[in-house]
């Protein structure tokens, strides 16, 4: 079983009387531990697909299986819980809370994880994640006092704080210069390789996509390339044996 499996997913928006089909039967899989880039021009449906994958939206029809569960039938509250437990989100514009310290920004998702953590534990965990992204000396800085790259690293720490198996990054380098972009992408690669976190990066930038192991191309609501995780790769991972030849991991 793959981590993510979409089966024949349609998404149609209703604008007044006109039905606008955005996704027209998308099927794809993502295996555990993959670093995938989702590419497409604007209007191709990649944002919609991203929203559905991130459980922010529901498909009009079709099935979405995540980790053996059909999440396309989940209620809004169930999806919220799922997002909290299994997903981390990184956005193009960082979406950090203004006038709030980096530490509080990172600890924020923990407040929705049914209070099993005390305030102190939550802060401790947030501090640990911030150290992981190399911001241990910026804990009390507010977003306005941080550079773009630092802000994005705070956002990545926030995505990591719940130890999710899956991270969605929506144009994570769109607002960064090339140097910082490379830094952020390297961080994603590290997370993927060292922590085994599955990462899906949405981008229209071929340079960014180059960092991924696989590129899924979407055009006009249909997947045109790279829809399925390599079977051998997936099989190999299930067996827990050595990586497949195409795999660049294991270095």
């Amino acid at each position, binding site marked *: 079983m793959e981590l993510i499996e979409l089966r024949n997913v349609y998404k149609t928006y209703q604008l007044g009387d006109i039905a606008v089909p955005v996704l027209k039967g998308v099927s794809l899989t993502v295996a555990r531990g993959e670093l995938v880039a989702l590419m497409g021009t604007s209007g191709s449906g990649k944002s919609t697909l991203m929203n559905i994958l991130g459980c922010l939206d529901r498909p009009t029809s079709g099935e979405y299986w995540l980790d053996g569960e059909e999440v396309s039938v989940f209620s809004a*509250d169930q999806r*919220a819980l799922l997002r909290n437990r299994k997903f981390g989100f990184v956005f193009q514009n960082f979406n950090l809370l203004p006038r709030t310290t980096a530490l509080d920004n990172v600890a924020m998702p923990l*407040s929705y994880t049914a209070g099993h953590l005390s305030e102190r534990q939550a802060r401790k965990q947030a501090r640990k994640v911030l150290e992981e992204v190399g911001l241990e000396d910026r804990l009390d800085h507010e977003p306005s006092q941080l550079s773009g790259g630092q802000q994005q690293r705070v956002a990545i720490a926030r995505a990591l704080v719940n130890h999710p198996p899956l991270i969605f990054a929506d144009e994570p380098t769109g607002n960064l210069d090339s140097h910082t972009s490379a830094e952020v992408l390297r961080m994603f690669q590290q997370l993927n390789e060292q922590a085994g976190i599955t990462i899906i990066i949405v981008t229209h930038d071929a340079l960014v996509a180059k960092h991924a192991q696989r590129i899924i191309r979407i055009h006009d609501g249909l997947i045109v390339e790279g829809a399925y995780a390599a079977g051998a790769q997936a099989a190999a991972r299930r067996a827990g044996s050595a990586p497949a030849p195409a795999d660049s991991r294991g270095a």
Partner: protein
Amino acid sequence: MKIYRTARTAMTALGRNPMRALLTTLGIVIGVGAVIAMMEIGTGSSAAIQKTIATMGANVLLVVPGTAASGGVSFGAGSVTTLTPQDGEAILRDSPAVRNVAPIVRARTQVVYGNRNWVPQQMLGTTAAFLDIRDWTSLAEGDAFTERDVLNANKVCLIGQTLARELFQGESPVGKEIRVKNVSFRVVGVLGAKGANMMGSDQDDILLTPWTTLKYRVTGSTLSNPNQSAAGSTSSSVNTLNKLYPGEAPELYPKQSETQAANTPLPVRFANIDQLLTAARSPEDIPAAIEQISEILRERHRIRDGQPDDFTIRDMTEMTNTLTSTTRLMTNLLLCVAMISLVVGGVGIMNIMLVSVTERTREIGLRMAVGARARDILRQFLVEAVVLCLVGGAAGILVGHGGSRLVEVLLRWPVATSLPAIAAAVLVSASVGIIFGFYPAWKASRLDPIDALRYE
């Protein structure tokens, strides 16, 4: 734990815009402050009025004789004398709602001590029960006269503070002799200070003696009218019972032959008195006491059904009720005004919260993306509004309480700390927060995370 964290999140969110939070809260501060101040001043005035009435003698009922009339001309209350001390004894004995009864004989004349003289406003002949009825049992000096003094018509008296000051000028009056109409009285005690009554007349300007002494030794006749100049005209032109005891030196008891006594089974009127001061057991007993007193008196005075009473019962609760209901009306009126300002404050909160929801749409989207459910968002914004209102309420309590203290100190208005008002203010400010915070919070929770995240 969870609510603590929500509250903390709310505080942090509010702390991001302290000036706005402060201004928003100001509406509630003023509203709650106004409610508290109004309530405290209102209850203070009402308590003060009740206290004033209590010093006048709580639960007091005054029985005065009825009016005499001749050829359609009425002579006013007290112009006939129909009450006797025995009426009072009968009331005390037969009316369970009455706590105590004191007969009263009035006079108004000069009191002399040494080279000083004074005309006390009230010169009352009564019994020791008077002090109990008027809540005046605490004497500044000496003791009250006794039942024996009343029976023997002893020449003893109690004087009020004003009289003591005017006559004795700082000397101790106890044991001194004062003269009333050339009758020498020994002062046995000085009454405690009672001050002016509600209408401003000085209650301490008083002289109390046994009623027998005042009646038989001083005035010589019942004073149907405390203004002695009028006494002659009523007794000569109207056939009233004043005629019963003419002259300056009446007998203590009217002479009766054996035959007379046997032939008149009616109770003999030994003496008439001007008023009967009675006290009901409690304010609730006052209506029952009135009913019982009039029943007893009608029976004793042999008044047939359908005939008018020959006495009038005056009832202080009427005054008490009027005054307290006036105070209550005022308090309610002020409360209404204060409530309006609370509602205005609430609308202010709603306004700001709506602005805040719009401004923080992206934050709401983000929170939803990282796992906040609609109800988490609802709760967060609701808690923010409630925190604003509660903080405002707490500040309002301080401001209102301080304000009423200030009024107390500067204007000398009586105020009383009102715990129910404080509880109500906390409750009201919390409900204002919930009511006016709900709509913005609900609006926030209805947002679609995708749209909210993309909101510019």
